[in-house]
């Protein structure tokens, strides 16, 4: 790469001089990343509390009179939407995307720093709008995070008067924020890579974030238009999604709309959204595994193509969420076929992760514990996806606790394990301090065992036929007392996991404040962000001169080389070999 149009131009630096410019209205990608991350974690804690309340009701249905059915449905809805969109999407892309893209590709910043700043502030506004719905009459929407009409905007659902409107408005603003950030990430990856950083030398973190962002740019518009159309149905009386119906005894004015149309639009967004969360997780965990196993990621090229293939396929599988939606059942053949195809590149990724560990030299650090824990939870969650993706098996299991257990394992626990792996892994770079290892390990063990205790037994409630989104089961002729006991125990495990997240929060805050100073490259990693002249990196990242990249990101344990890692930016002539012979590295 000889053409570095923007990053090299020193007049593009915009060095901030005041506190406000540096930490509030900042255009520095690192500050924006931390702003995104902090807001995402804060709003995630709200969702965590909501899930604990919801679990209290489910575990002990007669004991908490202050949780009434309306509130229960509001907790369920807000928990789901916050976790999927406002925590996971924002933290992976707004947080890690912002932090890592420029640092890992050797750029000084995003190519559009001002737009990047706007992206964060729009995100914050979307969060404020969403939180505001807790304080309006009627409260937030209780339509379930899928927001299916007609129910979402008719009187029988909590929050159908104001809550749903704020939800849709918040989503629209979020999507605007995402689009500003997303265009930036894609352009930066394509345009601002430093000398020698070819696409096939990029760390998998960048690949995952890059492809996920492209998915988001195509997928979010479907959600945006459905939010606009539903707003019209509700406020202007159009009938995009609203058929003729008798709502609570009153005939409504709508006629001819298609509720299933909304589901198609929603899942055309919703399924890629799974991979908008998963692909960055795949990328980040690959880098963590490789570094701490002191071994190159196994089959890098295959890993890149698997990310791209999964990203492409994710757009033609959406209706597997709708096998029993009342759409034409013949669609089931097509979508079951495409869905199970995705299992192949996904399985390749899993094989390559464990093969990366094979013959490695594994340092079981805190980030590595979370990364290995991720492999376990992801294998579990991925395999249960084969049950649900296979249209026939979905018939008894859809809308039961099996679904809840599946998507929490694959899209809740697994990405969160990666988030923790990544947060611990890059914390020394972001803060310049080292976290407390003992607290980190306590956090891992509590989270890993706790989450499995929540979700493993939940699958069996699903086999039994316990439906999801039930405020209480009441009397049935098929749910034995043991299942209620199990539900209570699941709640205990959930509370346990929630409480132990405080250990993580405390560790982060305490370590930023009082932690030991960290080495610039404590994990002895090869990628560029660990090679910055300052730790944490200053504005502009690289001092006077941009780094030059000579090889791929996974040059660990090369035979004959003195150190067990060779950073991407060290020229071959400077690499010390044991016998003094010239170093020949990985050919890409």
């Amino acid at each position, binding site marked *: 790469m000889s053409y570095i149009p923007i990053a090299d131009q020193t007049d593009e630096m915009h060095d901030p001089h005041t506190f406000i410019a540096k930490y509030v209205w900042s255009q520095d990608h690192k500050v924006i990343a931390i702003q995104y991350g902090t807001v995402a974690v804060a709003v995630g804690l709200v969702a965590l509390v909501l899930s604990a309340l919801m679990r209290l009701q489910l575990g002990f249905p007669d004991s908490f*009179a202050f949780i*009434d*059915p309306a*509130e229960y449905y509001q907790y369920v809805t807000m928990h789901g939407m916050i976790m999927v969109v406002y925590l996971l999407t924002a933290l992976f892309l707004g947080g890690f995307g912002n932090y890592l893209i420029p640092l890992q590709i050797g750029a000084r910043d995003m190519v559009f720093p001002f737009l990047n700043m706007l992206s964060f502030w729009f995100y914050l506004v979307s969060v404020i709008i969403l939180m505001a719905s807790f304080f309006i009459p009627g409260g937030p929407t209780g339509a379930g995070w899928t927001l*299916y009409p007609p129910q979402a905007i*008719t009187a029988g659902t909590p929050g159908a008067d104001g809550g749903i409107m704020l939800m849709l408005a918040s989503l629209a603003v979020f999507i605007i924020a995402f689009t500003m950030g997303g265009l930036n990430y894609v352009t930066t990856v394509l345009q601002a890579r430093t000398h020698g950083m070819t696409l096939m030398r990029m760390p998998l973190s960048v690949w995952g974030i890059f492809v996920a962002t492209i998915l988001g740019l195509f997928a979010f518009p479907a959600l945006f238009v459905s939010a606009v159309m539903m707003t019209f149905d509700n406020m202007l009386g159009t009938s995009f999604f609203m*058929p003729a*119906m*008798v709502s*609570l*005894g009153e*005939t409504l004015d709508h006629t001819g709309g298609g*509720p299933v149309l909304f589901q198609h639009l929603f899942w055309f967004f919703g399924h890629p959204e799974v991979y908008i969360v998963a692909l960055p997780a795949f990328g980040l965990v690959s880098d963590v595994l490789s570094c701490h196993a002191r071994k*190159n990621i*196994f*089959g890098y090229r295959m890993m890149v193509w698997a990310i791209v293939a999964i990203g492409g396929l994710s757009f033609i599988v959406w209706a597997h969420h709708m096998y*029993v*939606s*009342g759409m034409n*059942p013949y669609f*089931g053949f097509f979508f*079951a*076929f495409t869905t199970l195809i995705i*299992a*192949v590149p996904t399985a*390749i990724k*899993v*094989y390559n992760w464990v093969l990366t*560990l*094979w013959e490695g*030299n594994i340092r*079981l650090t805190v980030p590595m514990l979370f990364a*290995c824990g991720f*492999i*376990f939870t992801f*294998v579990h969650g991925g395999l*249960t996806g084969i*049950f649900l993706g*296979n249209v*026939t*098996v979905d*018939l*008894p299991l*859809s*809308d039961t606790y099996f679904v809840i257990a599946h998507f929490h394992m694959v899209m809740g626990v697994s990405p969160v394990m990666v988030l923790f792996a990544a947060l611990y892994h890059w914390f020394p770079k972001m803060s310049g301090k080292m976290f407390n290892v003992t607290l980190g390990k306590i956090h891992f*063990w509590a989270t*890993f*065992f706790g989450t499995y205790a929540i979700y493993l*037994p939940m699958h069996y409630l699903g*086999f*039994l036929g316990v*439906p999801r989104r*039930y*405020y209480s089961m009441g009397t049935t*002729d*098929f749910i*034995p007392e043991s299942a209620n006991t199990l539900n209570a125990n699941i709640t205990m495990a959930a509370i346990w996991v929630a409480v132990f997240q405080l250990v993580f929060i405390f560790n982060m805050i305490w370590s930023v404040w009082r932690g030991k100073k960290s080495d610039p490259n404590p994990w002895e990693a090869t990628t560029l962000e660990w090679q910055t002249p300052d730790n944490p990196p200053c504005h502009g990242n690289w001092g006077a001169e941009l780094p030059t990249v000579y090889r791929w990101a996974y040059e660990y*344990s090369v*035979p004959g080389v003195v150190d*067990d890692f060779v950073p991407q930016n060290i020229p071959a002539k400077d690499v010390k070999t044991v016998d003094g012979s010239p170093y020949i590295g990985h050919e890409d």
Partner: protein
Amino acid sequence: MAFVVSIVLLVIISIALQLFTPWWLQPIASNWSGIDATIDITMWVTGFVFVAVNLFLAYCVYRYRYDKNRRANYEPENKKLEVWLTGFTAIGVAALLTPGLFVWASFVNVPEDAVKVEVVGQQWQWAFRYPGADGVLGTADTAYVSPRNPLGVNPNDPFGQDDLVVEDKEMHLLMNQNVQLLLRSKDVLHDYTVAPFRVKMDMVPGSVSYMWLEPTLAGSYDILCEEHCGLGHFIMRGTVFVDEQADYDAWIAAQTTFAETQAVAEGNAQAGQANYAICSACHGVNGEGNLALNAPKLAGQEDWYLRQQIRYYKSGVRGTHPDDVYGAQMAPMAATLVNDAVINNVIAYIGTLPDNAAPETVTGDLANGADLYNSTCGTCHGDDGSGIWSLHAPALAGMTDWYLVRQLQNFKSGVRGAHPQDQQGYQMTAMVSALEGDEAINDVVAYINTLR
């Protein structure tokens, strides 16, 4: 080491839970054993992969733990291995998918001999329609929905006249007979699920979806709604009975046709006045109620509700619980209304009585009462407490408040609402759990007093 042991342990626990789980698919009651077989195949294959990958993970973490005197192996790619793994996975996935698609093909194609039965969903109740003697269901549309025609059957369609309208949460199916369920909704999305049948399908307003099955095991099974349909989603319950021929025929014969439901004459208030005399002894000449005699106010109550409750007293759905002292007094009184015509006449007469708000006897915390009412009661009974016919929620505002308190207590203690044929009783017993203690009940009733 701790990690390695943990992984092995979790794998063992997972296998043990699968082998010895007390929670598993209920005994199948339909022809869809192919679904169970597909689940079994999937469980075996995925279980194998789960165990293999995770034990390999544990092995690697143990065998290749950090040793500063050792180097990791340097192996960027291994094309051959990758191709093998890809091919192996593709074959495994195909093996999982294929049997499932065969089962799906038979699910999608309904046998020609299948009898059609309509299931109608609404917030938060089930209703059913069976083709009459002609074997054909008449057309229906939400535009025809009215209190007299709750399913919206087309009154001009000759095929619909003999349809059996079952406005009841119980339906019956004939064992070993293929049945196609035509699923329709009057308002929002619902989902017809009977777990032992294995199959389920959403009901979409504006269109008719379907599924078919052959019931194979006699018994009664819960019908649950499994698509979120609003506040009362979790109390939308029904029961399906799989019957032998004789039981089925008897049940069918007892149902009323659409034409019959339309032919019932309007009540005659004048004729009803005479029959009301016996009621007036307790409920008062003007139906105003009498606390001393434990008789609630009747004037102003909705006619369908009075009709339903009189029928419940007559058939033993209400007034038979051993602790229902006042219900036991009402039951023989209801029995004096000998047939539907008489009931309709009495109710028509009650409709002519002056509706004056009953005196207030209950006090409580109005703010708390308003919160409770609006979040829990108002959705069905209306924000103004005037009742909503389509939800079978009676009027509350202006009715005798001490009676409301007593009924809420009865629902809470199970004195009322526990009878399996009490349509909305179950829903009330579930909703009153949000009212904790007598104070909350007084608060909510005190608030209802402000709605008159």
